[in-house]
């Protein structure tokens, strides 16, 4: 590797780019490439409406992927996303049925339900030392069971409240959808936590080597638990936003978010083994996945072709920049 030339170029770039991971830069480059290819098919892929629309839709995945990233940084994974999303959405809408108080508490209650699922995951992973891949699978099944019982037994209200609608589709700042602002706020908070807060450092530390973090006197179990709770909460919040977007909650809302949220985090350069990754990368990954899905959909590619292209593009991009270092 010729560091001198690289260093020379990097030296002239703004500071945040210089510090960025090459993976993140490549991911952003892929976004531009994707848009370029899309624009060959139709000019409207470059229209501001379309781009804003994508950003808005991406923000739902963005919020969910934020939680997923936190968990992945710990070297864990959260497979309970689908029904955490659904539970968040359904419970928020359900709360709204209980008078004005219910309407006010709808959003917090939805998030709270997601946090509860996350806490169960957290207890399983941190305190019972069950591999996250399996305990989150089980809580997902339990959450699904609860929602089925609930829907069947309680004839729930499932229309979104005005506040949920406003958060997902309103415009507090003209031209910028609220969902995007929310994602930006959550993202900013996450960046702050990861880079400036002690909590973030411990997350990276645990992701690298939990044993060493524990022996450093960090209550690693609590950190893991909190991370899962946050992930559950963010999934549920994603569900609340989705419910606002669709103006109602539905059972299967979250199914489409599990694999994309993992893929987005990893495409953004975060190591699935934990301990390494930046939020900027996750942002890139989320936009990448959303654009890819949307462009393939609008091109009216048959489902089979879409799946194949989707898979091939992910592998290709990872081969481009997501490879582990050579062992020698």
């Amino acid at each position, binding site marked *: 590797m010729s560091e001198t030339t690289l260093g020379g170029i990097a030296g002239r770039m703004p500071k945040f780019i210089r510090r960025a991971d090459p993976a993140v830069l490549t991911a952003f480059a892929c976004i531009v490439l994707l848009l370029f290819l899309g624009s060959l098919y139709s000019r409207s892929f470059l229209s501001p409406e379309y781009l804003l629309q994508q950003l808005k839709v991406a923000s739902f995945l963005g919020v969910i992927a934020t939680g997923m990233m936190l968990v992945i940084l710990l070297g864990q994974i959260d497979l309970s996303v689908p029904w955490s999303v659904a539970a968040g959405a359904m419970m928020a809408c359900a709360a709204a049925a209980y008078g004005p108080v219910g309407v006010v508490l709808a959003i917090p209650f939805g998030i709270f339900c997601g946090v509860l699922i996350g806490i169960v995951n957290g207890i399983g992973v941190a305190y019972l030392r069950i*591999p996250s891949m*399996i305990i989150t699978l*089980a809580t997902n099944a339990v959450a699904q*069971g609860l929602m089925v*019982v609930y829907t069947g037994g309680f004839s729930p209200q499932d229309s979104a409240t005005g506040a949920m609608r406003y958060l997902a589709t309103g415009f507090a700042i003209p031209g910028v959808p609220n969902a995007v602002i929310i994602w930006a706020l959550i993202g900013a908070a996450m960046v702050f936590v990861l880079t400036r807060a002690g909590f973030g450092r411990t997350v990276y530390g645990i992701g690298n080597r939990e044993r060493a973090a524990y022996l450093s006197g960090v209550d690693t179990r609590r950190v893991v638990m909190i991370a899962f709770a946050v992930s559950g909460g963010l999934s549920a919040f994603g569900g609340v936003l989705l419910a606002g977007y669709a103006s109602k909650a539905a059972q299967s809302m979250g199914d489409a978010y599990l694999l994309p949220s993992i893929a987005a985090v990893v495409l953004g350069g975060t190591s699935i083994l934990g301990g390494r990754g930046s939020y900027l990368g996750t942002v890139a990954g989320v936009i990448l996945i959303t654009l890819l899905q949307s462009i393939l959909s609008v091109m009216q590619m048959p489902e*089979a072709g879409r799946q194949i292209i989707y898979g091939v593009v992910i592998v290709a991009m990872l081969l481009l920049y997501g*490879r582990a*270092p050579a062992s020698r």
Partner: protein
Amino acid sequence: MKDWRYWLAEQRGTLLALGIFIVMFIIYTSNHPAGFTANVVQTAANKGVLLAFVAMAQTLVVITAGIDLSVGMIFLLTNCLASWLVVGTPMQTTLGVIAVLAVGLLCGAINGAIVIYGRLQPIVATIATGAVYYGIGLLLRPFPGGSVNEDLADAMTGRVFDVVPASLVVLFGIVLVIWVPFSRSVLGRAAYAAGSSETAAYMSGVPIRRGKFAAYTLAGLLAAIGGLFLTFFTYTGDAAYASGNAYTLFSIAAVVLGGVSLFGGKGSAIGAIFGALAFRTIGDLLFVFDFDPLWQPLFQGVILLIAVSLGAFALFRVRNRLEWFL
């Protein structure tokens, strides 16, 4: 310590899975209206064996400390393919079976190549290849349909001497032909070693790449055997996305129930088979207990949660907290 104690320690996970399965199966059959009959066993065996093959496939990869989220999709793809190819004269059928197995091997080999030579993390790499395999499956079978050599299918899902389910016999045969040689071969050991400590294995001159590659490839083959069986069982091919995903996730649950460590290096496909059978019995329990239909998913979820938490009891024996962190 005596030799047998070491053996016992090594087989603990497998034996535990066997125990869980036996207990659940006894609960199931003793409450079944038809009781412990050949029919009931055959039905349970056919259903269980399907997952058992996929779980065996998953085990091979998990042993290398990897994970294959595309097994379910290979399973679907080979099912779709088999519904085209495994038909006609015995000769054509045989060639069809070979072709289906070859495609499974190829899918596994592609996974292996991407993970090992492309140096990608198995989770994402196989999410992506899974999408590709599913897409190809959908191309092959845009709608459920096709057919299979029904004589062969009936033989494979029927009973031998009218008592033993043929599917169990085949499963046993596959264990003998694939798993036993693999686990005792140099490559199999390399797969274990790579899963346990890749650096240590590398520094010891173990052929880790070949071992891992063999594991992924054989996983593809086993998933294809599962796909073939699915075809025998359903007489058709069907690219049902949800079902592919479900098998992938079930296979992980089965593997864990079977005492295979997701951290790699530990466990056996035999344990995973019992894990798969036990997992399937969870679903069967619904049948014998009178649950309100809407409570059934919750019941299954809770049983799964309890089953996967069983391992946590070992935690109470841990006296040194450092053992929490592997």
